[in-house]
């Protein structure tokens, strides 16, 4: 069975049917991309899965368990992590601290342990710090660790967000436009990174407008348009899909 299954999910904003009866599934250890024109409902779909917004109806299963009535933080604890299209870093915290927060679901020390500074929390703290460094390093921004995250350049902020999401060691990673604002070189780096993450056993669901990235790395693609799923197939097939070309890709896309 698939890692993530979305069944007939719906979201309306007033008169706008932003996500219209969408169903799809993501198999373990694959990279799946969601594409579609601007305003098609991709981000909304992500928000529905991560429960940042409430669905009107529909079901979501993760590892065969229903997750459509959990709190957002429970979703994260189950092993779904995400990045945001409009970067949402914790202002007032350094890049390192941002990533350390990412380690939250995989660490235990509670309120009391923190206040009393129990030895267990200390060793855990050390481990978190090391792990956070590791992820910063992986993204190639270890030298920015102590700068305030929100004062970094756009692309650097994206990297921090990426590292933060990875730090929670998710089974499923939702990436909303990870390459937006990156140049071709950096985009390629991200592509490499994503495949590398996948090799570590992490499943990836991805929204991206950069087709060079999407077509390169994804195993399967879902196409949304006006909230509806209009296609789901392998990259090669999608590239040939008339409708997708007409509404999204344009004629002579690479």
């Amino acid at each position, binding site marked *: 069975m698939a890692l993530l299954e979305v069944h007939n999910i719906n979201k309306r904003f007033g008169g706008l049917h932003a996500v219209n009866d969408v169903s799809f599934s993501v198999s373990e250890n694959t990279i799946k991309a969601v594409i579609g024109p601007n305003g098609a409902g991709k981000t909304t779909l992500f928000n529905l899965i*991560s429960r*940042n917004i409430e669905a009107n109806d529909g079901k979501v299963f993760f590892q065969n368990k229903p997750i459509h009535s959990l*709190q*957002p*933080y429970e*979703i*994260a*604890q189950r092993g779904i*992590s*995400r990045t*945001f299209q409009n970067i*949402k*870093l*914790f*202002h*007032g*915290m350094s890049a390192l*601290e*941002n990533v*350390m*927060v*990412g380690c*939250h*679901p995989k*660490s235990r*020390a*509670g*309120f009391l*342990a*923190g*206040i*009393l*500074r129990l030895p267990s*929390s200390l060793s*855990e*703290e050390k481990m*978190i710090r090391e792990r956070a460094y590791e992820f910063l390093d992986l993204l190639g921004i270890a*030298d*920015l*660790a*102590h*700068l305030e995250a929100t004062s970094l350049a756009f692309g650097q902020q994206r990297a921090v967000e990426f590292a*933060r999401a990875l730090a*929670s060691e998710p089974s499923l990673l939702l990436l909303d436009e990870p390459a937006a604002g990156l140049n071709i070189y950096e985009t390629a780096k991200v592509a490499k990174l994503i495949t590398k993450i996948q090799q570590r056993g992490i499943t990836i669901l991805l929204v991206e407008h950069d087709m060079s990235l999407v077509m390169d790395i994804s195993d399967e693609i879902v196409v949304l348009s006006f909230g509806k799923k209009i296609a789901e197939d392998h990259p090669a097939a999608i590239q040939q899909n008339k409708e997708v070309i007409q509404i999204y890709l344009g004629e002579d896309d690479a």
Partner: protein
Amino acid sequence: MRQYFPLCIFLALVVLIQLVTQITETAFYLTQLTMSAYYSLLIIGLCTIMGYAGQISLGHAGFFAIGGYLSAGLTTHNLQPFADTGITSLLDKAGLLVSSKDLYGDTLLTVHPWIACIVAISTAVIIALVLGGPVLKLKGHYLAMATLGFGIIIFRIAMATPYFGEADGLSGVPSFTLLPGITVSGDFGARIINYYIAWGTVLIGMLLLINLVNSRMGRALSALHGSEEAAQAMGVNTARAKLLTFVLSAAYAALAGVLLTHYNGSIGPGEAGVMKSVRYVAIVAIGGMAHLWGALIIGTLLNFMSMRGLFGSYDDAVFGIILILIMLFAPQGLLRLHIWKHIQKIKPKKHGTA
């Protein structure tokens, strides 16, 4: 361990000040230093929920008042007339009551201060728990309004309830023996020990909070301050983290209320007033918001000067001026030294650009 270094300096300073006052025979300063210690206890608690977790509370004077009033009420209201009724005698047998003579020779039967203290703080904690749930869902000005409203409610209850002395407040609050030989009391003879009780409490309070803000939970608090949505997406149960911190800070405020009330021997409704809460919030802001040491030092200084009547009739005016000046010229707080951050910032930058 580095974060404990200031604590050690602080401890040394506390002892040093006491010794200096002893040598210079100015021990009377300890009276106001003790009073400001208790206000500072409230302020560092508020600093945690406000500065770190980013949840403004304009109602913390209310928690202070809950602590102070309950403990004062229970330890001053004479149960002698009810000595033979069921509950009272039951409590008496359980050893929860104390009998004493007042200044005028009448016998008083009152609740033991320890019991009163526990009741007072638990009440504050329970109220914070119940209130915190819905209140902390609110944001920004709406949160400010709700906490302000809570403060007003407590103020009004204190003002309107005969048990709490209405406009007069409660006086004649007995001293509070924490342990044999260690008594919270305003007597001149007990001044030094009270100074150490107060600052000892603040130091322990500070220690716990420093631990908290440097822990995983503390980081979660700063995170939800930065972006609640993202914090949730990172698995932080933001509602719970906010609530626990709120409750903790309420407990600090209530404890401060209990101890200061026993120290002063009285409490008045003004302690629950809106202006008090506003003042606490402003002090946290002057201290630099997410800055425990700033809050502690500014809180102690300002309250000390105010309690000494240093500015006479200009107490409020001076406070207002300080507030404005700091917000204009040092919005990060007077005591936020950037030295560390600068060093950290510059170092990796050089590697980066090289």
